[in-house]
């Protein structure tokens, strides 16, 4: 019996001593979730309370995340263990158990800080942004739930727990995209996002099941028997899944499919642009900074599955696929972004392309490279989105960049921060974090020895990025005002987060320069050292020079085409005039939606029609026939009843009722009478019993 008590969940102390930071790690995601639960119970007018609850809980989890981060950094600096985890058994069937758990390692620590910090800033921002919305509390309920689930994804040490949080994230994303569900477009967008990501998640689930069937555990790390640790990996590598893939690679690719769905990689990117129907803070938090990054994070988490079996400096089939998908997505989305006119759509497509960069970075240069770009991108993309939100807010919900312009004088602070974000996104040399992270990817691509294709694609993508961002900024902030009524700067609660994000957008570059690759060292658990020789690697400086040139080229091109001249909103775009044959397909997003419409959707519609026809004709006919038969039978019965049965039945009834009259004397409604009968009966029964059982 005591054994059972020993396995009470609340006793991680059964392992050796674990610091309360680890045992209490679960508080980080739980705090916002609890907050959202409480908010859900609040009445609508309790706006202030709801907001303070959400912000407070998230700041609690941010503080805890910082604690955890410092804990890991300290462990890393002392060269002691950097990966600690707590596992609990959820339930067991047969011999195999299903375990949940949470892990704290550099990857998780960095993501924790990033998510909670960006999330907190966006929460504060949205207090101002949503101030006039009547569903304020609902908004914060969903937001906190999302933040909690995201943090859960980050810390979970079990693929199952990760998948649960993953699905909650998907759900909240659905709820928040459709937050203004009275807009049919928003509802449609929400549905689209949900369904599209499902497609990926199905593969993800398949991967999970396969992994469980092969390794018997879903824990990532568990003292050497986890699914990402030696034994399991070797076992997985040893068996082949066809197409030159090992089981490990195949599972990795299935999970990668889930990531493709979540972070809008090439086949499944269609939902992300439409997701911009949601409130702008949502777009910033979910569809720029964190959720879409969850896909990348997932790939980074299961990276061992994909990279196992690679020769040193070599690669595996799985990684090759990841690389190609990422690189092509990067260019593809960037191309489309060139020809969009909705300020948020442009940012959405740039997000897709940047996610492509991250994927490519993972595939080419390993976890550190991709994750570094993820972190930097999270900050400056959140900055850009919030800036866009502030612009939209300032322009009275106007989203078409052709109807803006000259805002740099109207909203200077927004312009400043936005420019910083834009330069960081373009990868403007030296001073901006985007440059360093993107450069790392390019460098990795350059040294990739399978093919140089990704390298050229990514460079071209960089050019395009610089170009379309310049176009957007020119449209929005330069020239003269083309909107209806004049714009105004947003209030403090919105601009302050912008400033903070801008600071990070610049400063984060420092920790990832080749001279001092602190970040990479930390993630890959090497020792970091500062030396200028980092730049002395062959070809690095040339590469930096080349990419800077590319960026300048893009900026110059953009300025040349759009700079400071403000065309009338109706006038065709500059690029359209010069190259209409190129413009049309780009404007129509390269017809991907139409393609899906013509194939998948059309097929489902056709299938629905077929099913409907079956229902109406075949099954309906059968049912009708049966019904008719029964009707006939019923008629027959009725005749029988009326003529024969009823007579006899009435007679019986009379007899019964007279008999009942006699019996009803007993049921006098006197409680004590009942009790008496009861007792007497008991006496009789017991007496009989005893009598019969006498020896």
């Amino acid at each position, binding site marked *: 019996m005591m054994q059972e008590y020993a396995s009470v969940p609340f006793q991680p102390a059964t392992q050796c001593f674990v610091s309360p930071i680890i045992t209490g790690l679960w508080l980080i995601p739980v705090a916002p979730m609890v907050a959202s639960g409480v908010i859900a119970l609040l009445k609508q007018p309790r706006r202030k309370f709801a907001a303070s609850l959400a912000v407070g809980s998230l700041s609690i989890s941010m503080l805890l995340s910082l604690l955890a981060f410092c804990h890991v950094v300290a462990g890393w600096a002392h060269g002691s263990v950097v990966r600690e985890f707590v596992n609990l058994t959820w339930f067991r069937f047969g011999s195999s158990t299903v375990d949940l758990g949470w892990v704290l390692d550099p990857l998780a620590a960095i993501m924790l800080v990033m998510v909670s910090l960006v999330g907190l800033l966006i929460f504060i921002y949205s207090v101002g942004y949503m101030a006039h919305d009547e569903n304020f509390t609902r908004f914060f309920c969903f937001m906190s739930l999302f933040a909690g689930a995201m943090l859960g994804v980050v810390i979970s040490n079990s693929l199952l727990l990760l998948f649960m949080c993953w699905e909650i994230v998907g759900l909240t994303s659905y709820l928040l995209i459709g937050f203004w569900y009275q807009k049919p477009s928003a509802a449609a967008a929400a549905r689209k996002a949900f369904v599209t990501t499902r497609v990926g998640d199905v593969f993800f689930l398949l991967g999970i099941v396969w992994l469980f069937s092969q390794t018997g555990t879903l824990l990532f790390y568990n003292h050497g028997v986890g699914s990402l640790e030696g034994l399991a990996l070797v076992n997985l590598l040893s068996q082949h899944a066809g197409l030159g893939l090992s089981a490990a690679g195949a599972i990795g690719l299935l999970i990668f499919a889930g990531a493709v769905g979540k972070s809008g990689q090439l086949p499944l990117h269609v939902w992300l642009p439409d997701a911009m129907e949601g409130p702008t803070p949502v777009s910033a938090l979910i569809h720029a900074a964190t959720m879409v990054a969850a896909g990348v994070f997932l790939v980074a988490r299961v990276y061992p599955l994909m990279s196992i079996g690679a020769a040193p400096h070599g690669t595996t089939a799985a990684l090759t696929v990841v690389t190609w998908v990422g690189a092509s997505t990067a260019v593809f989305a960037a191309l489309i972004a060139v020809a969009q006119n909705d300020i948020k759509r442009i940012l959405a497509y740039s997000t897709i392309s940047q996610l492509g960069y991250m994927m490519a970075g993972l595939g080419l240069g390993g976890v550190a490279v991709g994750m570094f770009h993820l972190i930097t991108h999270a900050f400056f993309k959140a900055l850009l989105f919030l800036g866009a939100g502030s612009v939209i807010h300032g322009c009275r919900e106007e989203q078409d960049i052709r109807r803006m312009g000259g805002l740099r004088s109207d909203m200077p602070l927004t312009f400043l921060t936005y420019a910083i974000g834009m330069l960081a996104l373009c990868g403007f040399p030296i001073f901006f974090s985007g440059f360093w992270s993107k450069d790392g990817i390019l460098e990795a691509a350059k040294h990739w020895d399978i093919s140089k294709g990704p390298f050229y694609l990514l460079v071209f993508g960089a050019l395009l990025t610089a170009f379309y961002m310049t176009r957007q900024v020119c449209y929005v902030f330069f020239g003269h005002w083309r909107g209806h009524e004049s714009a105004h700067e947003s209030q403090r609660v919105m601009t302050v987060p912008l400033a903070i994000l801008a600071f990070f957008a610049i400063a984060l570059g420092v920790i990832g320069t080749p001279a001092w690759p602190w970040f990479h060292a930390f993630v890959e658990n090497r020792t970091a050292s500062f030396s200028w020789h980092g730049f002395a690697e062959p070809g690095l400086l040339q590469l930096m020079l080349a990419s800077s040139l590319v960026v300048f080229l893009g900026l110059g091109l953009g300025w040349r085409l759009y700079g400071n001249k403000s065309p009338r909103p109706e006038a065709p775009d500059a690029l359209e005039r010069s190259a209409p044959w190129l413009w049309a397909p780009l404007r129509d997003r390269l017809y991907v939606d139409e393609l899906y419409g013509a194939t998948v959707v059309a097929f489902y519609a056709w299938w629905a029609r077929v099913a409907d026809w079956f229902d109406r004709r075949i099954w309906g006919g059968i049912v009708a026939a049966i019904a008719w038969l029964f009707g006939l039978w019923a008629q027959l019965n009725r005749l029988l009843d009326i003529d024969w049965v009823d007579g006899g039945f009435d007679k019986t009834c009379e007899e019964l009722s007279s008999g009942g009259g006699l019996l009803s004397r007993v049921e*006098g*409604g*006197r*409680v*004590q009478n009942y*009790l*008496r009968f009861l*007792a007497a009966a008991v006496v009789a029964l017991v007496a009989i019993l005893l009598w019969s059982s006498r020896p």
Partner: protein
Amino acid sequence: MTTPLAGYLLVAALLFAIGLAGALTRRNAILVLIGIELMLNAANLNLIAFWRFGPHPELLTGMMFAIFSIAVAAAEAAVGLGLVIAIHRHTNTTDLDKMNRMKG
């Protein structure tokens, strides 16, 4: 020199009979309830006596049974008296002989 099981059982039986008599002969609904309480207590006495004299007192079965039945008896008393009060408010009597209508 100790008391044999039979003694306790007899006391319990007598108490049960007394309670039953009370429940059967008094007019007042509350007293019927009290009688039923007495019967329950007699049963508890039995349970505990059996636990004490049974082959496996360390299993606590009878004792647990008694404790649970105490709890249940408390609930029963609460509901029963609540009913009596409600009926009294409705028909202004607690006399069972007068309370013989099946519908209010």
